[in-house]
């Protein structure tokens, strides 16, 4: 795992609180599962029809009838349940999932999310992402702060087609954490190795800085 990913995942796992029902998106978010402390009781929901995902199986014990939304073989924890896809998305759309952590391509300062298609490239489909960002009680997006060309992925407005409009509650990058509130986009944390100036430089979106963070960061050179 790259260092950036590890930083993001380590920060993201802190979002998960005792007794929460959590949906983890495909890819980087799935890796969060392994980092949840064993002492914490949480239920992982998989939109293909399962509540209570366990760890990956031991080699030889894979069950083709037991996969997660990323189509990986998994196991079920004691106390799990299986259901059909309509029921699974009833849970999502009906607000019964406490927290969803998904990857992103772009996030706008209004909390818009784009993470499903790049015009001109082959469209693979949105899967369950559009339902999840509308339905989960809290939506946390995790992504690198900048793309491989060093350009901000946090935009004034998304250029890519949206997955959801004003759906992001929190954004965690390898540099910072932002909340999307009634007052707009607010910087609430600066991760190790960065300061406000570097974050401002790498962020196209306009944001304010949380008061507590301002106090703490007051000693910096700005």
């Amino acid at each position, binding site marked *: 795992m790259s260092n950036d990913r590890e930083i993001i995942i380590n920060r993201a796992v802190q979002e998960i609180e005792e007794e929460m029902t959590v949906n983890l998106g495909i890819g980087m978010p799935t890796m969060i599962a392994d980092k949840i402390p064993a002492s914490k009781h949480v239920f992982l929901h998989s939109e293909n029809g399962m509540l209570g995902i366990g760890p990956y199986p031991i080699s030889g014990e894979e069950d083709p009838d037991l996969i997660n939304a990323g*189509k990986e073989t998994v196991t079920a924890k004691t106390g799990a349940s299986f259901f059909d896809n309509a029921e699974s998305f009833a849970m999502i759309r009906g607000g019964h999932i406490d927290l969803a952590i998904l990857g992103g391509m772009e996030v706008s300062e209004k909390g818009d999310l784009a993470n499903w298609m790049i015009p001109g490239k082959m469209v693979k489909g949105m899967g369950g992402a559009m339902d999840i960002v509308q339905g989960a009680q809290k939506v946390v997006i995790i992504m690198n702060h900048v793309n491989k060309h060093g350009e901000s992925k946090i935009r004034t407005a998304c250029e890519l087609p949206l997955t959801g409009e004003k759906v992001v509650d929190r954004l965690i990058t390898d540099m910072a954490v932002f909340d999307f509130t009634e007052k707009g986009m607010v910087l609430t944390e600066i991760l190790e190795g960065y300061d406000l100036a570097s974050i401002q430089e790498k962020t196209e979106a306009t944001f304010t800085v949380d008061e507590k963070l301002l106090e703490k960061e007051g000693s910096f050179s700005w």
Partner: protein
Amino acid sequence: MTKVRTSFEDSLSNIKDGDTVIVGGFGLCGIPENAILALAEQGTKDLTIVSNNCGLADWGLGLLLQNHQISKMIASYVGENKVFEEQYLNGELEVELVPQGTLAERIRAGGAGIRGFYTPTGVGTPIAEGKEHKDFNGTTCILEEAITGDVSLVKAWHGDSYGNLVYRKTSRNFNPLAATAGKHTIAEVEELVDIGRLDPDTIHTPSLYVQDLLQGETYEKRIEKRTVREA
């Protein structure tokens, strides 16, 4: 009185050129393997397929693509199939992408006689373009319409000769929904069990949804992403 049939070929002949076919499964999990093989063999053309995914190039619904049997695909995610990409780009294949929860709900609605429903999913995205919008207590929703099929193909774990079905673990997925939404539903099962062996409290698909029931001789149950941990 039995719905048990012995020939996939005969049952699949219910599918005609130009039909809409709803197919259960998520990825390769819980797909009606034998029915798909028989449909590929039969060669029926110009099909509209409704299914969450479209298989791999050489397995599942991908076999129908290889045969150029599909003219339209309604799905939520089709990213794992190169043949799909080719046929889409050369204009042979029409694609309607539907959010997964909306797809599941549209199929359920089709089976349940609900003609349309309002959902917040997709508002503000390309999915909402051209759709009726309506506000419900401050939440903007779009109108989505039911999907029904001429035929549905589903795969269950256990089934009895009346057509009662039970699914296993996450292979349930879209199968019970598909079973309700086909004018003619063909169910294949791993094991045909005696009437009365299925607990009436735990039947997932009650018998009235099923027209034909077949026991598959073999199931490959391919795994798309084998993922394991250290013992």
